[in-house]
C-alpha cells in the first residue's frame, strides 16, 4: 500500500461576501490520493470543486475562512508560513488552470513565463539553464523549442494549454492539479492533451487531481472519481464503477447526460437532470439533492446523509445505499 501524497481531512471553506454574509462553498470534504495515483473531481458549476482545488495551494482570496487539514507531501499546507508555502507551490504541487488564454501574460513570450518559476524557486542555476530547460519542456509537451519566443496570441488554444502544462512541470512537482484543462478545446486536441497528461503521469510518477464537469473525460483519465454536490463529496470510488454503476442518484443523473454512442436507449433521448443546483448560502433541509432527486422520500428531508460504504473502495452519501 503506497502512502497518500495528498490527504485532505474535514475541509471547510467559507467565503466572506461584500455585504458581510458568509457563504459556505466547501462543507466537510475528506479524501486521499496515493502517490502516483489519479483522482477526478466532478460536479456542476458552483459545487465547490474549483474552490477546493485552489485551497490545496492556498490560492483563495484573503478573508476566506479555511479549516481542516491539507497534507501535501508530509506538510500541512494550511499552517505553513509564507516561506514554507512558497516552497510548496510549484515544487510540491502545481496547477494547470482553466482558460489557457487568461492564465498567460499576453505581453510576455511564453518561454519567459515557463522559466519564471524555475528562477524564482532556484531550480535553475542561471538564465541559460532555465532557457535550456524551457526548450526541453516545450519539446516534452509536443511544441518546437522555437515556440519559446512566441506570444500567447500567436498560439492556438491547444498550444496554449500545452504551454501551461509545461509551466506546471517547470519545477518537477509531485502533484499536478488540472482545473478544466480541456474544456475549451476541440475533441481531437482534448484527446491529445489527455494522452500527454497520461504519458507524463507514467513517466514522472506524477500524482494527478483532475477537475471538470465532464464526467466522461474524468472516467477515461483517472483511476478514482469523486462527485461533489453542494460543497460535499456525495460519491467516491473507482472511475468505471462510479460512472457505470453509480450508487448515488445524483451521479446516475450526471452520468446519463453523457450518452454512449451506439447505446440505443440514449438515441433520440437526451437525458439531463431537472432543476438547478442549490445556491451555497441557501441549502435545502436534509439531503441537499432531495428537491431534484427522482427517488426522494420523506426521510431525505430529515438530515443530511453522511458518506457510507457502498461496496469495495466505494462510498456514497444517500440513505438508499
Amino acid at each position, binding site marked *: 500500500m503506497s502512502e497518500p501524497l495528498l490527504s485532505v481531512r474535514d475541509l471547510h471553506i467559507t467565503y466572506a461576501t461584500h455585504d458581510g454574509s458568509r457563504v459556505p462553498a466547501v462543507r466537510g470534504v475528506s479524501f486521499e490520493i496515493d502517490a502516483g495515483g489519479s483522482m477526478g473531481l466532478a460536479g456542476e458549476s458552483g459545487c465547490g470543486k474549483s474552490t477546493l482545488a485552489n485551497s490545496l495551494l492556498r490560492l483563495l482570496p484573503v478573508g476566506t475562512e479555511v479549516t481542516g487539514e491539507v497534507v501535501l507531501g508530509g506538510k500541512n499546507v494550511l499552517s505553513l508560513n509564507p516561506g514554507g508555502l512558497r516552497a510548496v507551490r510549484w515544487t510540491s504541487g502545481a496547477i494547470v488552470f482553466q482558460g489557457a488564454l487568461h492564465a498567460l501574460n499576453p505581453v510576455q513570450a511564453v518561454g519567459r513565463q515557463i522559466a519564471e518559476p524555475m528562477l524564482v524557486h532556484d531550480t535553475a542555476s542561471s538564465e541559460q539553464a532555465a532557457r535550456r530547460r524551457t526548450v526541453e519542456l516545450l519539446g516534452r509537451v509536443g511544441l518546437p523549442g522555437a515556440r519559446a519566443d512566441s506570444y500567447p496570441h500567436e498560439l492556438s488554444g491547444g498550444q496554449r494549454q500545452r504551454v501551461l502544462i509545461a509551466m506546471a512541470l517547470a519545477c518537477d512537482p509531485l502533484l499536478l492539479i488540472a482545473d478544466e484543462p480541456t474544456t475549451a478545446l*476541440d475533441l*481531437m486536441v482534448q484527446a491529445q492533451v489527455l494522452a500527454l497528461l497520461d504519458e507524463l503521469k507514467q513517466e514522472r510518477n506524477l500524482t494527478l487531481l483532475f477537475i471538470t464537469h465532464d464526467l*466522461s473525460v474524468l*472516467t477515461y483519465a483517472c483511476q478514482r472519481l469523486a462527485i461533489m454536490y453542494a460543497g460535499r463529496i456525495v460519491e467516491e470510488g473507482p472511475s468505471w464503477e462510479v460512472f457505470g454503476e453509480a450508487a448515488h442518484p445524483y451521479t446516475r*443523473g*450526471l452520468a446519463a447526460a453523457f450518452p454512449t454512442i*451506439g447505446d440505443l436507449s*440514449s438515441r*433520440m433521448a437526451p437525458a439531463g437532470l431537472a432543476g*438547478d443546483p442549490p445556491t451555497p448560502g441557501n441549502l435545502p433541509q436534509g439531503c441537499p439533492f432531495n428537491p431534484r432527486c427522482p427517488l426522494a422520500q420523506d426521510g431525505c428531508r430529515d438530515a443530511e446523509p453522511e458518506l457510507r460504504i457502498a461496496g469495495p473502495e466505494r462510498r456514497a452519501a444517500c440513505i438508499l445505499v
Partner: protein
Amino acid sequence: MHPGVTPLVEVDDVHVHFGRSRAVDGASLRMFAGEVLALVGESGSGKTTLIRAIQGLQRTTAGAIRLEGRPMNATTRRAVQTLFSDPAVQMVFQDPTGALNPRQTIYEIVAEGLRIGRHGKDEREKVAEALSRAGLRPPERFLTMYPHEISGGQRQRVVIAGAMVMEPRLLLADEPVASLDASIRGEILALMRRLVDETGLAILVVTHDLGLAWNIADRVAVMYLGRIVETGPTEAILSDPKHPYTRALLSVVPETREMEQQILIGEIPDSARIPGGCRFHPRCPLLQSGTLPPEVAARCPTDDPGPVAGDLAAGAACWAVPPG
C-alpha cells in the same frame, strides 16, 4: 427519400474565401423540414463560416444557397442586410449569458425580434407562447425578470424563445450546449428535439460533440478544411464511419473506449494552405498505416477526391472508400 418535396435549405458548392484563405471551399448540403442535421468538425474546419453564410451574415464567394427554392446567399453587402432580417432563419449562440442584454427584461429580449421586424401584432401573446414553448412556464413569472435572476439553463431557454418567437423554419445553433453544465445539456437538447417534432422546424446544429449528434440528430455531416468529407444517417456515421477522419474523431470520444484511439497529430492546417490531393492526406492514419493498396495510396497526395454530393445519399470523400 423525399421525392417531389422542395428542400428547406439547399447549399450548392458554396465557397467563402477571405483573401487566400478558403474557409469554405465547396460545401454542399440539403435539409428538409422536421429534421436535425449535425455539422461536426474541429475548430478551423469552416463550420461556423458556413452557417454564417446560410444565416446571411457572411458574403459568399461562389455557389448557391436556397431557402425553400428562393436564392438566399448574399454576394453584396446590401443583400446581406436584407437576408439577415428574414425571420425564417434564426440563430442560437453558444454562450447564453453573452447573448442576452443584462439591462433588458426577459420580455424585452424575447420581443426584440418582433419589434425590429415590425411583426409586433399580438406581441404579448407571442412572447408568452414562445417562452412557454421553450419550457419557461408559467411565462408570466419570467416576463419582468432580468437575465441575472435566472439560471444558466433558463437563459439558454430565453435565447431559444427569442428565436422561436419569429416562427422560423430553420434554426441555426452553434454549439448550443457547449458552455452549459452536463446536467442542463440534456434538458436543452430534449427541448430542441421536441420543437422539431412538434412544429416541423429544421435545426442545423454545429458541434464537436458527437454525443449530441447521437442524442438528437437525424443526419450527420462531417466537415474538414472547408468541405463536407462524409455525410449520412446518424446511426450509420456513428456506428460504421467510412472516412478515416470521421473514424479518428469517433475513436477519441471518451465514451467509445472499446475503439482503439487514433489521435491525429497536430491541428487542422491553415485554410490558406490547403494541402494538394486529398486535403486530409498529411494527417490520415489510414494512409500512414501503409495498409492501403499501392494504387490507392498513390492517388491520396495527388488527386483530390472532391466533395461529397449535397443530396441525401451517404458518402465519404476518400479514395479508400468504394463509392455507393
